[in-house]
C-alpha cells in the first residue's frame, strides 16, 4: 500500500545543534502529523499541519520546534537548538482527511548527545 517515507532513519547530533527530520507523506494526503515516542513508551502527539498551517499542537511542541512543507516537498520537523530530552523516535504520519486512517512512517531515531 501507500507509504510514508522518513529520512534519515537514524540521526545522532550534538546538543545545541539544529536537526531537520524529513517526511515524504502519501501523495494525495492532505493532513500531516508528527508524533514523539520515547523508547517503550506511548506515542505522544506533537503537531498537525494542513493547508500550509499548524492546526493544533501539544505542550511537547516547544518553541524550538517548527514544521513546514514548502511547495509540496518534504514535510519537515526542525528542532533548533536540540536538547538531551529531545532524544526519541519521531514518527511522521499523513491522512486523507479528518478521522481518516493514518499512514505512519517507520520513524527517525534521534539521539542528542
Amino acid at each position, binding site marked *: 500500500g501507500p507509504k*510514508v517515507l522518513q529520512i534519515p532513519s537514524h540521526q545522532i547530533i550534538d546538543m545545541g545543534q539544529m536537526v531537520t527530520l524529513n517526511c515524504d507523506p502519501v501523495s494525495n494526503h492532505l*493532513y500531516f*502529523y508528527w*508524533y514523539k515516542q520515547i523508547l517503550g*513508551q*506511548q*506515542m505522544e*502527539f506533537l503537531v*498537525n499541519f*494542513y493547508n500550509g498551517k499548524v*492546526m*493544533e499542537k*501539544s505542550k511537547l511542541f516547544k518553541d524550538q520546534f517548527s514544521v513546514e512543507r514548502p511547495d509540496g516537498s518534504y514535510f519537515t520537523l526542525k528542532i533548533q537548538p536540540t536538547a538531551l530530552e529531545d532524544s526519541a523516535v519521531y*514518527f511522521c*504520519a499523513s491522512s486523507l482527511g*479528518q*478521522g481518516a*486512517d*493514518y*499512514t*505512519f*512512517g*517507520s*520513524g527517525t531515531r534521534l539521539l542528542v548527545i
Partner: protein
Amino acid sequence: TQTVSQSDAHVTVFEGDSVELRCNYSYGGSIYLSWYIQHHGHGLQFLLKYYSGNPVVQGVNGFEAEFSKSDSSFHLRKASVHWSDSAVYFCAVSGTGGYKVVFGSGTRLLVSP
C-alpha cells in the same frame, strides 16, 4: 478532552489461543475509534476503525473490535493468534471535529509458540 486507557501493559498467550486487548475511552462527542499495531522498530500500522453502524468491526489478519457506548470501550479480539501477532497494540481516539488522534499507552502482546 479525549483520553484512552489500555489497562493491560503486557499480555502473554500461546499460539492458537484467543485474546482480547482492552481499551476504554472518555470523550464527550462523536468520535472515531481505531486500533494500530506496532512491530518492534517500525511505525504504527492501521488495523481497524469504528465510527458508526455495526458495533463489531472487522480488521486485517482476523482481528475484530467491538464498540460499546455503555461501557465506553473498544476492545480488540482475535480468535486464534499466531506468533507473528506479537507486537504492541495501540488503541486510539479522535474527535470528528478535531485534527489529532490520541493514543493509549499500548499493550504488548507476546504470543508463545
